[in-house]
């Protein structure tokens, strides 16, 4: 009898007198096999066979249906379905046809195994995980001999110089990555803002007059020189630092600012970039003057120097000092006086 066959009622493999030789626990022999309906009743077997075959045939039909739908149904057609709602007809049909088709192939195979293939449990012996002592000895001996033959042990100069060279070998692989990017430099400390730069609406790039902003008003804004710079650079880096929000409140409501006279008649401008990890914030609640970041719920009080009143941000929102130019449009008095956005090691 091969070690793969096991007759029910006999001593289980790995046990002696009903005790597991390894763990010492009591082991019961397997109970008698309970036959399934298909094992004893040929009609039940035939029924199961028909069920499996039906599933496979249905799968075939559905999969062919996929091809038909692919050819006939355009991608843009939307149809109202029950429960699912208004969806792409193509997507719904392709997905259900292929999906159900594959499901039926799988279900058919499983049904076949469960009902018709033998379900007599068999046992296979495990072999011990460790190698035999002989194998271990031979391995150790082979390694010892090979090492001795190589001379790695006695020839100290060869060994040391080899290790030295190998240790340095990865260096070019690391050095060559230097040009992945530039050194940080002053990049994180500078933005496009400077004295006289106009504040314009985002994304419509219109200059702003103070009288256009009512109390409680909010404007998402960018510096006027952003448009040109973005075209020049071909990236959104400056936008990621220079985006601001402008809000207007009753001057009597301003508790404090980051500098005297940085507002203009109750209009204040703050950086939009959260000082936590950099999400842009424009959720301004006009009654409380609180700015709420949707990412991690850091909350800043724009009537009180943008200080943090809740949440994981550690630093206040940087304020941009503004005034009006000769034509009556809002301009910056100067750039930001602290780095905008998330903290970093060298920040100070």
């Amino acid at each position: 009898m091969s070690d793969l066959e096991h007759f029910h009622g006999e001593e289980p493999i790995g046990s002696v007198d009903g005790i597991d030789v390894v763990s010492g626990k009591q082991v019961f022999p397997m109970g008698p096999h309970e036959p399934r309906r298909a094992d004893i009743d040929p009609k039940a077997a035939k029924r199961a066979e028909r069920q499996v075959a039906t599933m496979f045939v249905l799968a075939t039909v559905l999969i062919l249906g996929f091809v038909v739908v692919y050819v006939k149904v355009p991608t843009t057609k939307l149809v109202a379905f029950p429960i699912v709602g208004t969806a792409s007809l193509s997507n719904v049909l392709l997905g259900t046809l292929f999906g159900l088709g594959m499901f039926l192939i799988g279900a058919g195979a499983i049904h076949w195994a469960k009902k018709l293939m033998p379900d007599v449990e068999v046992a296979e012996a495990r072999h011990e995980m460790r190698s035999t002592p002989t194998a271990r000895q031979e391995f150790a001996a082979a390694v010892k001999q090979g090492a001795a033959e190589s001379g790695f042990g006695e020839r100290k100069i060869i060994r040391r110089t080899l290790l030295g060279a190998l240790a340095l070998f990865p260096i070019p692989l690391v050095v060559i990555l230097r040009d992945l990017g530039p050194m940080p430099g002053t990049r994180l400390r500078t933005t496009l803002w400077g004295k006289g730069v106009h504040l314009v609406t985002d994304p419509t790039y219109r200059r702003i007059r103070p009288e256009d902003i009512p109390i409680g008003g909010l404007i998402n804004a960018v510096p006027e020189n952003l448009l040109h710079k973005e075209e020049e650079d071909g990236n959104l880096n400056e936008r990621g630092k220079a985006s601001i929000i402008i809000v207007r409140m009753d001057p009597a409501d301003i508790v404090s600012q980051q500098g005297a006279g940085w507002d203009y008649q109750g209009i204040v401008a703050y950086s939009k970039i959260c000082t936590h990890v950099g999400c842009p914030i424009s959720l301004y609640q006009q009654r409380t003057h609180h700015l709420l970041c949707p990412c991690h719920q850091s909350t800043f009080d724009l009537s009180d120097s943008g200080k943090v009143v809740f949440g994981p941000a550690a630093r206040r929102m940087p304020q941009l000092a503004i005034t009006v130019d000769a034509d009556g449009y809002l301009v910056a008095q100067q750039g930001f006086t602290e780095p905008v956005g998330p903290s970093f090691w060298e920040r100070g």
Partner: protein
Amino acid sequence: MAISRRHPAALFAVLVVGLATTGVAYAAVTTGSTPQAVAPSQTQVQEGKEIFLQGCSSCHGLAAQGGSDGPSLIGVGAAAVDFQVGTGRMPMAGPGAQAMPKTPVYNEEQIAALAAYVASLGAGPAIPTEDQLKTNEADLAIGGELFRTNCAQCHSFSGRGGALSEGRMAPSLMKSEAKRIYEAMITGPQSMPVFSDKTITPADKQAIIKYIQELQKQENPGGFALGRLGTVTEGLFLFVVGLGALIGIAVWIGAKAK
């Protein structure tokens, strides 16, 4: 002396008949077009004041100057009243974090009167006209850009609302009418900031409204949208329905067949 066969009042009668005829004819010709921005009559303002004193002054003050329970209404404009009272947010049932829209307490005429009264207290945004709400010229794509820059941060990318601080919410826009959207933008109700017509022009606003209406169509090419709540509901669906189904089938595979 010639005897007049006319009745002494005949001339008078002709004048009256003439006036009445032309008056009726004029009314018949001009009925159907409600003139826009009709200057509220004194009676409408008075009616509004009475309604105000009865239903609003307890929180907003006798002269609408504001109080501990409600802000000043001087300068909020007719649009604010139309929005707040028209959506049923006002009068608020009680002080609380969020003014919830509900069935309006007042009818259209009363709301118009209230609006006229509040408008008389100080210059403020007027109720948007039909022309201001027309979206057929509006650019859907620009509307989307404007929406994502100015609205999505509170109302979410799908317009289904979002959380504010201390239990307040930016409500869902899925059932909002064009007029209400416009009014909300120009009046800045409750926590919402004000988006004046100078910085977000009427054309901008129409584009935004058009985009919101597009969102309201609830067209989801990929199928059931799980509330358009993003990855949270996707994850819930995955574990409850998806993994649940697969584990269920695994149990079926491992179960002894009969």
